[in-house]
């Protein structure tokens, strides 16, 4: 009996380990991102924006894609982190990495407090509470003009050199490397998190809460933890924005930010972390290209894309390669998910 059990445990461990191994497409993506520093020196600001949006979307993916919590106010934590980093740099200490930690702590605490609201009720209640929290914070940022500068934003922030060594340059190259490094490290952590037994239990809760409870998964605690972590992630994304632009305004808390990040995630695909990054690339480039016209009309196109995505079906977009011949599909899949140290046939 115990032999069978330990064998099952071994198999589970092996499966977890394999899920955690690096895939070819991931390695290619990071190499491309790093190469962009040298290949696209004139696009540093855009690339920085992509990295920040990607981190923000990954944060939303943690709660939406893995825990199944629909949020319409994720900008709350993004904005909180942005303000925390701005005020920290202005009044406490100008070194940015310390600022990132400060922002993560502030947003994480807010996320922890908010998670108790999110635990209650149905999808609709969750939508409302998340939206309500974000709007309240936006109002707060607007009202506390003595601290936040109100609608004009918090200006006069000086950001010191990173770790006291690397000063931000005029072309945004330092900013991009800085954001990319933060994105890489946090994605790495998030990968481990979602591929661990903790991540698997989250998926179980999302798929079937009743059954998850039957196998003794403490859904409450898991959701509180993941929501807190995700809030801290969003806070870091907001802090990165503050550090790279030296400016914060109530715009970081606006509703359209929450909606945008939802769109980013949905474009890229919900529930596999890299969806956030892919979505951020597509979304930011698209917006850069479209915003040649005025912001109001850009909204029209966002709306159209959202509606199209829903009507076509999110799953069908994720299976974009389905119109290719079957053998080619299999080839792409094998190549993309190939892990170092495995034969092509073996990889899933």
């Amino acid at each position, binding site marked *: 009996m115990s032999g069978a059990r330990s064998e099952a445990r071994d198999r589970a461990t092996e499966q977890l380990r394999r899920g955690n191994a690096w895939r070819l497409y991931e390695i290619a993506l990071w190499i491309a991102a790093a190469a962009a520093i040298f290949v696209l020196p004139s696009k540093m600001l855009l690339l920085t924006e992509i990295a920040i949006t990607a981190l923000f979307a990954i944060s939303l993916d943690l709660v939406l894609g893995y825990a199944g919590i629909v949020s319409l106010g994720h900008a709350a934590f993004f904005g909180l982190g942005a303000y925390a980093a701005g005020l920290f740099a202005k009044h406490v200490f100008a070194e940015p990495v310390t600022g990132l930690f400060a922002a993560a702590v502030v947003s994480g605490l807010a996320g922890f407090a908010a998670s108790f609201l999110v635990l209650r009720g149905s999808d*609709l209640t969750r939508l*409302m509470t998340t939206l309500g929290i974000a709007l309240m914070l936006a*109002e707060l940022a607007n009202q506390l003009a003595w601290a936040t500068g109100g609608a004009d934003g918090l200006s006069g922030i000086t950001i010191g050199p990173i770790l006291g060594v690397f000063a931000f340059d005029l072309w945004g190259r330092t900013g991009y490397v800085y954001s990319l490094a933060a994105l890489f490290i946090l994605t790495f952590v998030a990968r481990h998190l979602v591929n661990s037994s903790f991540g698997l239990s989250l998926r179980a809760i999302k798929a079937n809460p009743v059954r998850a409870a039957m196998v003794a998964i403490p859904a409450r605690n898991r959701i509180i933890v993941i929501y807190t972590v995700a809030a801290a992630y969003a806070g870091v994304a907001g802090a990165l924005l503050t550090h790279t632009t030296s400016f914060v305004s109530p715009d970081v808390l606006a509703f359209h930010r929450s909606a945008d990040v*939802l769109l980013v995630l949905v474009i890229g695909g*919900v529930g596999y972390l890299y969806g956030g990054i892919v979505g951020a690339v597509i979304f930011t480039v698209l917006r850069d290209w479209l915003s040649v016209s005025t912001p*109001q009309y850009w909204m029209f196109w966002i*709306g159209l894309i959202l*509606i199209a995505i*829903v009507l076509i079906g999110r799953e069908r977009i994720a299976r974009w390669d389905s119109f290719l011949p079957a053998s080619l599909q299999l080839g792409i899949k094998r190549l993309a998910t190939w892990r170092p140290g495995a034969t092509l046939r073996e990889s899933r």
Partner: protein
Amino acid sequence: MLTILFDGIAYGMLLFILACGLTITLGLMNVINLAHGAFAMAGGYITVVLMNSYGVSFYWCLPIAFLAVGLAGLVLERLLYRHLYSKPHLDQVLFSVGLVFMSVAGAYYFMGGQQQMIQLPQELSGRWDLYGVGIGRYRLFIVLVCVLLTIVLQLLLTKTRFGSQLRAAVDDGRVARGLGINVSAVFALTFAVGSGLAGLGGAMGTEILGLDPNFPLKFMIYFLIVVTVGGTSSITGPFLAALLLGIADVAGKYYVPQIGAFVIYGVMVVVLLLRPHGLFSREGGR
């Protein structure tokens, strides 16, 4: 003091007119339709254009706004919303947010970004002074319309054949279909009425709430708060919730203007903490 109470009541009633359509689509049909404000805005713009460019009387604008927006709702339901009923809530949210964004951009394109003004008829402007209580005539008009509307809706839902068909279709579409109820037509008609009511609310709210292309974003949260706080299983729940929120909002903005905008969110969060399904809903309701 009583003047503020009256203004609060009128404001709440206006909120109810705007939100009751959402109560029907969201509460009864279980579609998270964040684009409700866009329908209301359409009603407002129809009124503005009719009154300012064609000189149509305000009283005629109200039914026209109701019918036109209702018709638009019907068309949208047949074309788009119909596919959403069975989709997850996330899809409904994405879809309706998309619709809001498109409507905001569309309003900018056609009407420009400025605030729109309408001139109320002579007999509706000004206020009476009744024993020291200032009663705005237009606000009284809103209260009257709202009371009438509530009674009609309540009767429609509880006493008519259509009402019971709708409730049957919502509770179990398959069985309702088996009983010979044309569920799809019932839903289409309900959705049309819901959006028509939004149009009516928008037409009436132009004077008090103001009208510009950001209307759907600005007031979306208010409608949703009314519905979630009120609970989604009846008309009376949102009605009372709208009154509560209207009074709280007006009183908050008057007495404590520094925190005015927080009052309504604060009320919502507290209510949802205590009763996650809304104040007046059955236990275990949606």
